[in-house]
């Protein structure tokens, strides 16, 4: 099976989260299944039998680094599989099963209070887990209740108290630079705190990718009680755009797919486009926008 064929087969079930051992362990705990054991039995064992222990070791390394999707995708670079072997089909079937199970339980895992699960996710954050290279899935649309307002930073409040602790990596970063003078960068309003926190998350935990990033920003605003379409929320989104363009979070893949026609596009990262994307639940290409006279009402 060549790369394209294998990719299309795997994409029967879309899962934007890297199914690395830590994430699979979290799924194991929640569902009381043993997916890691299934992977060993269905993929790693047969790989060792067909191609030797080095191939099995390579697969394990790919699984740990890139997740199950890409580890299987790399089969295209292996020597030809013997005709009678069904390893590729079995691997894809197992991926579909696990990916579907994960997507069905993703929110339960995220929201679980079980420290056994949360420590797996903490490990992923420490390792800079990011779904950057994977196919996105449609996001739930965030529709504005009023037309988007002009972005404006809220006034300073000298007595502003943080709602969240400073991101621990920010502390380490500034400490490592020999600086403990945090007062200069102290947030003076809720918008500052949201931007500070998102900057830290994307810098230290990994940039999530062009597809989900603005949904993450908007959802985070909502958690702070800020409407992403009011002046404060729009200021936050605009500031994050500036940071993305300023490469605060490094380079990232700017290509995505139109949610309507499936064509590839490289969207302009500007507020108007982003607001439409949030309202529609994904990026739409300019042709589709024009054809369907899409706008925010």
């Amino acid at each position, binding site marked *: 099976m060549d790369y394209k064929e294998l990719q299309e087969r795997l994409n029967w079930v879309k899962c934007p989260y890297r199914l690395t051992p830590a994430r699979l362990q979290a799924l194991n705990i929640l569902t009381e299944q043993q997916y890691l054991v299934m992977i060993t039995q269905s993929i790693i064992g047969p790989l060792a039998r067909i191609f030797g222990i080095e191939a099995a070791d390579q697969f394990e390394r790919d699984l740990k680094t890139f997740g199950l999707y890409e580890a299987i995708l790399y089969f295209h670079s292996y020597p030809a599989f013997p005709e009678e072997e069904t390893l590729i089909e079995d691997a894809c079937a197992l991926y579909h099963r696990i990916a579907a199970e994960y997507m069905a339980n993703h929110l339960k895992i995220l929201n679980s*209070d079980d*420290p*056994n699960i949360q420590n797996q*996710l903490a490990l992923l954050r420490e390792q800079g887990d990011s779904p950057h290279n994977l196919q996105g899935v449609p996001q739930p649309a965030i529709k504005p209740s009023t037309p988007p307002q002009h972005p404006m930073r809220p006034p300073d409040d000298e007595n502003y108290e943080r709602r969240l602790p400073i991101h621990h990596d920010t502390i380490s970063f500034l400490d490592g630079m*020999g600086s403990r003078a945090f007062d200069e960068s102290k947030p003076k309003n809720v918008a500052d705190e949201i931007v500070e926190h998102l900057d830290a*998350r994307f810098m230290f935990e990994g940039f999530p990718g062009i597809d989900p990033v603005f949904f993450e920003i908007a959802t985070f605003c909502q*958690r702070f009680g800020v409407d992403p379409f009011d002046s404060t929320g729009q200021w936050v989104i605009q500031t994050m755009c500036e940071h993305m363009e300023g490469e605060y979070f490094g380079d990232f893949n700017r290509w995505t797919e139109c949610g309507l026609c499936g064509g590839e596009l490289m969207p302009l990262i500007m507020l108007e486009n982003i607001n439409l994307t949030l309202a529609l639940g994904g990026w739409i290409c300019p042709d589709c926008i024009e054809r369907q006279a899409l706008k925010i009402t």
Partner: protein
Amino acid sequence: MSLQSTEELERGELDRALGRLGSSTILSDPSKPGKRLTDYVFDPMRRTGVSSYEAIRDHFDQHWSVTCVEIDSEVRESLPFSAPRDDLGCFSVRMLFAIRKSELYLAIRGDLRNCNKTVALLHEIGHLAFHFPLLQSIGTLYHRISMDPRLEFEIGGYLRSSAGTEMISLLELEADLFAVSWLVPLAYDEERQSSGNQEGSESRLTGDGLRYLLLRRCFDHGTDGEIHAAKIPGYNQLGEDLRRTTEGAYPLHGSLWERLSWVLCQRDELLSPSRSKQRQESMRQCLELFGFSPRWIPEMAGKRHPIWRDQPNEDQAWIPRRTPEELESAVDLHHWEPFLVLPSGKSVPAYHIPITPAPNREKRDSKVEWRHVGKADSVMPAALSHWRKTAEDQQVGLLVFPRNPAERMLDEMRVIR
């Protein structure tokens, strides 16, 4: 050329000898601070000891990023390995998070005289020098217990065993050894030994007398300066009496003076190779239990074998308990350790939810919002009542990490942590 003050000279010596280490370095390479400290303190050629509390405190705060907080109340070690006595300080490796880096700070009782503060501070730095990896491993224990509550009883079995009580004693003894060796350099042992050969001289300090005098200087700066000849016989006699009183076991529950005098008198033996072997064996046994790597969390792989030979039982619990009704009032008391709130009728739930207050200038923990220790920073904290209900609904425990007095003070001072 202007003369430097004693304090300036001492600060200069600390800069030269200990240099600078960020907390990131300390946490990522736990052996580094220990080596630097022990190389300095146990250097047989060193003859001076920095005794300024401010100089030592400031050096660790500014150049090692280990904050020292003075507390005007009782201080206790926040670990299961704490000697059951009134502590003058604690070295806290606050392992609030199982996976990521944690906080270091020293807490000292602020109501002590300066000399005693110096000794207390050096004792805590001694824990940093000798026991830092072990303290990290022990700190991780709470998180492992939240993942597997049965682990608490296994650890309890160890703590009640002779190996456990010996370890508690060893940790305190070594910290005292560090403190006294900082203030009374090893070079004086040679001088004391040669003085000891002079017998029956009323105008000369004996080895015992010299040792007594050096120890007195640690606690009372008034004995600095020239020694009056008339006082020499007194010092010699007191030194001899001191040596006799230290011939028993290490006085774990004794005063600071009793402990340091015992350690100083026994220093030769404590630094001997045979003692070092004994120490290594005790430490090895302890680390086998808690994990050689500070972040050894076998629960992450989903399996754990029982680690202590005796059959664990619920009588071996050691984390303090509170009822759900006591939760809001309990968090506002002075705590140096976490406590457990268990669901009714369930002494060993599937897991404990670990929670801690989000840093806040508000002094009362019952009035601030609390966060799940394992979840991302971006998850909004919630009121204590929310967590109590969540734990009740899920029929699991709550492992509550209230802020200790040092952390409340750091929050009030807006020190980032």
